[in-house]
């Protein structure tokens, strides 16, 4: 009995001590900085000066760089993760907001909000490699798990465009609700989820038939529908739970991926935008634009367990693999 108790404590200590510190890079849209959070201490360990209006942010596949789209500088900056300083740029085309990479990490697909275009960039050559014309104000970008279909959402056209990355053309477009912001595939690729900020819904699309098979709606007790504006979508790697950031509603909805039912609403900071899991899947970090902080959600407990102050208007988060 006692032994078991002591062993239990020892094990807990061991596990606690093992919690490897990941690094989260948070793009602060207004302060033109990236805050580097250590996920062990939950503290900002460095603030990196970047270009103007940093929003979309992600690691390169080789983990050597964190790429950050600096919309007002019409460029994507490369933060060297060994020095945590900006060491290069990619020619993103005008007003880059969001991007995704090809599965092999060679190409970057960038939504150019001002230009109705998705620009393709060869990362190694640091050069543009083509472009695809899409709808008005392209924003959300997602690659299917098999790498065969690239999704772009266009905010004023209200569509999810299916792009063949080999042919580099739009092969299908699916109408969704107003101002589609973000697209995410379920890990098995069987569903495509698209959030509509102004429409207030998440459309679940069958990527084979290319039709909306269901729309997920949200309702928070005591809150009017207007501020419930879904943006970021993060689905757990086991494909069981989806977390949906509800913008100015200051909540993250937890949705059962199988049933498409909302099972919980978690109160986070103000104007919650994009999010990222720690690689072990234990925590989900949310960028809260208006309260200038990052909420830390314990994924197993479905509870907010910490808050980290960052720069002004945090927009998105990139998380290291290790």
């Amino acid at each position: 009995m006692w032994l078991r108790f002591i062993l239990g404590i020892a094990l807990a200590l061991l596990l606690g001590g093992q919690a490897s510190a990941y690094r989260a890079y948070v793009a602060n849209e207004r302060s033109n900085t990236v805050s580097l959070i250590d996920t062990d201490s939950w503290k900002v360990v460095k603030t990196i000066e970047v270009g103007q209006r940093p929003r979309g942010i992600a690691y390169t596949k080789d983990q050597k760089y964190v790429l950050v789209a600096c919309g007002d500088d019409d460029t994507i900056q490369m933060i060297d993760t060994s020095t945590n300083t900006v060491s290069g740029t990619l020619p993103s085309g005008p007003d880059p907001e969001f991007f995704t990479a090809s599965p092999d990490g060679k190409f970057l697909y960038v939504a150019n909000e001002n230009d109705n275009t998705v620009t393709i960039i060869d990362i190694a050559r640091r050069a543009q490699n083509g472009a695809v014309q899409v709808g008005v104000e392209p924003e959300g970008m997602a690659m299917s798990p098999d790498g065969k279909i690239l999704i772009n959402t266009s905010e004023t056209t209200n569509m999810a465009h299916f792009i063949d990355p080999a042919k580099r053309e739009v092969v299908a477009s699916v109408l969704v609700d107003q101002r589609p912001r973000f697209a995410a595939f379920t890990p098995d690729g069987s569903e495509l989820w698209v959030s509509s900020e102004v429409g207030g819904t998440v459309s679940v699309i069958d990527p084979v038939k290319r039709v909306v098979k269901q729309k997920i709606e949200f309702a928070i007790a005591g809150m009017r529908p207007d501020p419930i504006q879904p943006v970021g979508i993060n689905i757990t790697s086991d494909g069981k739970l989806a977390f949906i950031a509800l913008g100015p509603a200051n909540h993250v909805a937890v949705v059962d991926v199988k049933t498409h039912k909302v099972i919980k609403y978690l109160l986070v900071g103000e104007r919650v935008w994009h999010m990222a899991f720690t690689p072990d899947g234990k925590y989900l970090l949310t960028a809260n634009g208006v309260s200038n902080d990052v909420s830390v959600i314990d994924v197993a407990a479905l509870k907010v367990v910490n808050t980290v102050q960052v720069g002004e208007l945090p927009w998105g988060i990139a998380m290291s693999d290790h």
Partner: protein
Amino acid sequence: MLRGFCIAAFLLIAMSAAPAANGLNVKIGYLGRADKTETISLIEMPAANDGAAGAELAIDDNDTTGKFLNQSFSLQELLLKDQDDPAAAVQKLAGNGISLIVTDLPAAMLLKAADAGRQHGVFFFNAGATDDRLRQEDCRANVIHTAPSRAMLADGLAQYLVWKHWTHWLLVVGSHAPDKLFADALRRSAKRFGAQIVQEREFKDTGGARRTDSGLVQIQSQIPLFTQSAPDYDVLVAADESQVFADYMPYRTSQPRPVAGSAGLEPTTWDPAFDQWGAIQLQSRFEKKFSRWMTALDMQAWMAVRMVGEAVSHVNSDDAKAVLKYMEGPDFALAAFKGRKLTVRDWDLQLRQPILLADGRTVVSVSPQQGFLHQYSELDTLGIDRPETKCKLK
């Protein structure tokens, strides 16, 4: 003389490229004003394509969407002078197969157009007239309003002034009919939101030219004289849609007081300085195409044409009845860079929308203000709400 030739400035422009083969081409009409109001400020003089430019940009936006749906859109513009017959213009557009018309016409002309359009099954989008009577006793079942009403503008301003605790107003009203209508709306708003009009003064339009070589000298001494010995007040609220005096008020009042209404802090649907909620993208698209700034009238026309695009993308038809039915239904919403969806009030066909408060350089705030609650939508704290409506749609 010849009724048929009354449509003076006759601009017929097909805006879009050739319609997609076998696709749906949606023709939209635009009836605008050939005569523009002269403004006090030279930099606010409306461009010849004020309003129409917004509609043209929305045609582009609709076409970009339409190319994925095999739909295309075109615009035919007619500019009318005050003495022109709107019924003839409607007939002309209807004859060209148009059943959806965006208008920037004075209230009386709009009503004539709407009544003439009824027999042709034409549906109208009022992008220009703010008259409350068009949403009240003179409402029409074939007119949707993307222009805000004066009541909405006044409520948007009043909520902010009350939030600031600037509740004592000196109301200065111009001598023309539209000024008086705006003053009516401001009085209603003051009463609704708990502001007090400490005194009203009329600023008579005595005529004369706006641009003179030594006008400044006179104005600098006239306005302090006009505003002196008023009871204590927090803010001077000017009702001067006719552009006679309001812009002369800021910095020239007898007592140092801010100015709001038709000058200073102005309620509006759009401002070239507005950059929130993705608005910067629309601003830059507009500036790139027209080499000028986007005005509220441009925005109201943009919203009208985008509403058509939004509805057509769902009903895949240009039948006015089908388009209208969708717009009035529960699935319709317009995203128009205001941070929330815009929908249509079913009791008077007014588009619900936030009201910006702009000072000419920045957007100071957006109403509805926090704390002004409503059982259905906070946007319905702006303008004539369902229980107050006098509109019987027919």
